[in-house]
């Protein structure tokens, strides 16, 4: 496989077992159709046309798909060609690759293959998929694809070496010691799922049904049948959470936080530092005795949705399904810089408008982020980097107007993520709007040393100067104070090319 990768220009096939693995995706349908025929046949063998037909068709389709799919790395693009009737040829420029996820469904794990999902910057729909590759090839291709990075500086893995050539960057990148930032023990995850609102609802339903069954069995049966759909979907939700977030591990990587998780299907995905739009920490009421919290991040450019519109192209990912406050702080420190701005509570009039959550409301900002805390039952702390803020709004409802209050929202990209300075006095709100727009403009204009560099360089900044161009388009690119500039040079002649 190794020489296969290096042989540039040669087309490669997917792993020969992929047609078989692809059937795994259809497994539920096949099983269901078998079951249906069985049930319809009243216990004896009914006609097996449908299930057998579906299975055969999926095998044939899988095989044809495997036959016509090929891929290769050609210079600085990855090309994937597929399709028998509708030919589909994709070119993914390596410089625009955001992240490469490795996904292994159960069947693929048994067969020792994995799927690569390649996410590009900007475009939502044109993500690449290679399903399936052998495990070693998948890892190798991932390293290869991430070798020409957009984010990490000249030290990406090469520890202070002035001009690392790609080969050494690859080898040292591959052998980079993994620093585990957080992991979730199975017991704690199960506990967290058990102590969630969904479980409570399920339990309540079960108890109610039991009581009903004792007092009025007929009604119980009717209500039970009516509620069955909900019970199944709730239980399914709980199961999905458990299965998706099992064996959760967050590992520090040069390009971001690498997350590994999954019970049956394992996923290894990267959350790039620079794409984080907002970080949320949630502390539900039921978890509070244990001191647990959950961290979620909103990332741009993960969109599997092809639709164009507001809030699309932003995905929410769990960064820590459940963890101690200390774990959370550690991660937040890495992700948003850790400086905790001074938090201030809203004025006393706000007590009249929000008597319950008043004690929890607080918000603050510094020159890099806005932070706010809201909610009583489910306490949510939101960090929005001002550099990423999309718009700033002041909202004042009728009750707030009577009390002389107003809220200021800092909108982050996405459907409904925002930091909210809730129930501030009108004068303060007006000041906040001005000041926050000013600060976010400043934050956008000179992007200070990005956190990715701080994290990967381990505190030792790389001196400014000319280094090999990470995008591969030019010989050298100028590196200044932790960021690549648009100045490039080819054979001594300088030019400007935006990264």
């Amino acid at each position, binding site marked *: 496989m190794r020489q296969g990768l290096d042989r540039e220009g040669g087309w490669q096939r997917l792993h020969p077992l992929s047609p078989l693995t692809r059937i795994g995706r259809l497994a539920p349908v096949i099983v269901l159709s078998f079951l249906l025929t069985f049930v319809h046949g009243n216990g004896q063998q009914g006609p097996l046309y449908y299930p057998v037909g579906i299975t055969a068709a999926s095998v044939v389709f899988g095989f044809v798909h495997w036959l016509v799919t090929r891929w290769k790395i050609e210079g600085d693009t990855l090309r994937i060609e597929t399709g028998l009737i509708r030919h589909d040829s994709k070119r993914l420029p390596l410089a625009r690759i955001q992240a490469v996820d490795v996904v292994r469904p159960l069947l693929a794990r048994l067969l020792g293959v994995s799927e690569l999902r390649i996410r590009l910057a900007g475009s939502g729909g044109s993500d690449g998929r290679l399903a399936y590759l052998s495990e070693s090839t998948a890892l190798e291709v991932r390293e290869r694809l991430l070798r020409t990075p957009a984010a990490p500086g000249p030290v990406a893995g090469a520890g202070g070496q002035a001009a690392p050539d790609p080969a050494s960057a690859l080898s040292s990148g591959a052998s980079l010691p993994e620093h585990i930032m957080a992991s979730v023990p199975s017991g704690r995850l199960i506990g967290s799922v058990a102590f969630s609102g969904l479980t409570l609802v399920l339990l309540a339903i079960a108890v109610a049904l039991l009581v009903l069954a004792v007092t009025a069995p007929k009604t119980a049966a009717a209500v039970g049948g009516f509620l069955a759909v909900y019970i199944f979907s709730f239980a399914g939700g709980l199961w999905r959470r458990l299965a998706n977030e099992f064996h959760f591990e967050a590992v520090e990587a040069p390009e971001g936080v690498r997350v590994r998780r999954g019970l049956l299907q394992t996923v290894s995905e990267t959350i790039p530092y620079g794409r984080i739009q907002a970080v949320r920490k949630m502390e539900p009421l039921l978890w509070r005795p244990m001191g647990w919290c959950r961290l979620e991040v909103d990332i*741009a450019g993960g969109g599997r949705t092809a639709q164009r519109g*507001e*809030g699309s192209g932003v995905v929410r990912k769990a960064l820590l399904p459940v963890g101690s406050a200390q774990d959370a702080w550690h991660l937040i420190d890495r992700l948003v810089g850790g400086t905790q701005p001074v938090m201030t509570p809203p004025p006393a009039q706000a007590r009249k408008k929000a008597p319950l959550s008043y004690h929890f409301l607080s918000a603050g900002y510094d020159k890099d982020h806005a932070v706010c805390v809201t909610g009583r039952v489910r306490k949510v702390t939101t960090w929005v980097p001002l550099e990423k803020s*999309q*718009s700033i*709004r002041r*909202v004042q409802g009728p009750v707030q107007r009577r009390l002389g209050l107003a809220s200021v929202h800092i909108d*982050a990209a*996405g459907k409904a993520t925002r930091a909210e300075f809730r129930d501030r006095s009108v004068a303060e709100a007006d000041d906040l709007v001005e000041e926050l*727009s000013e600060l976010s403009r400043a934050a956008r204009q000179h992007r200070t040393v990005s956190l990715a560099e701080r994290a990967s360089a381990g505190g030792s900044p790389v001196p400014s100067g000319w280094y090999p161009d990470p995008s591969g388009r030019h010989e050298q690119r100028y590196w200044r104070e932790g960021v690549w500039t648009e100045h490039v040079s080819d054979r001594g002649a300088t030019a400007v090319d935006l990264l």
Partner: protein
Amino acid sequence: MRRAELTLVTVIVALAVGLIFGAALGALACGISVLVVLVAGALSSWFVRNRFRAWRYQERHEDLIVARGVMVRRLSVVPYGRMQFVEVTAGPIERLFNLSTVRLHTAAAASDARIPGLERGESARLRDRLTELGESKAAGM
């Protein structure tokens, strides 16, 4: 424009209600129901006027400010660099009055920068200016 829509709707509803009640319950019921509908129409027309008057926008050096609302007052500050695209729409009734709506889209769904009821020339100017500013100030995501 909205008032034209409202007047139209009010008249139609008043006629319909009047006819139904008139046929079913007699002339008195007919008169009362028509009166109720007309008063409701007048009231909402007043609301719409206030709402329209509260809608203002301001082009600043770096951002666009849109303020609106009577009951719930909202003010959005959208930096030009954050604009993804500008949308100009004109519905049939808007077209009748030579008006259109300009809408700014950012990556956040909540940004809510919509300016309705602009004259055609003004909306075209605003659109061009916003696009131009957006390009020059684009900061990327």
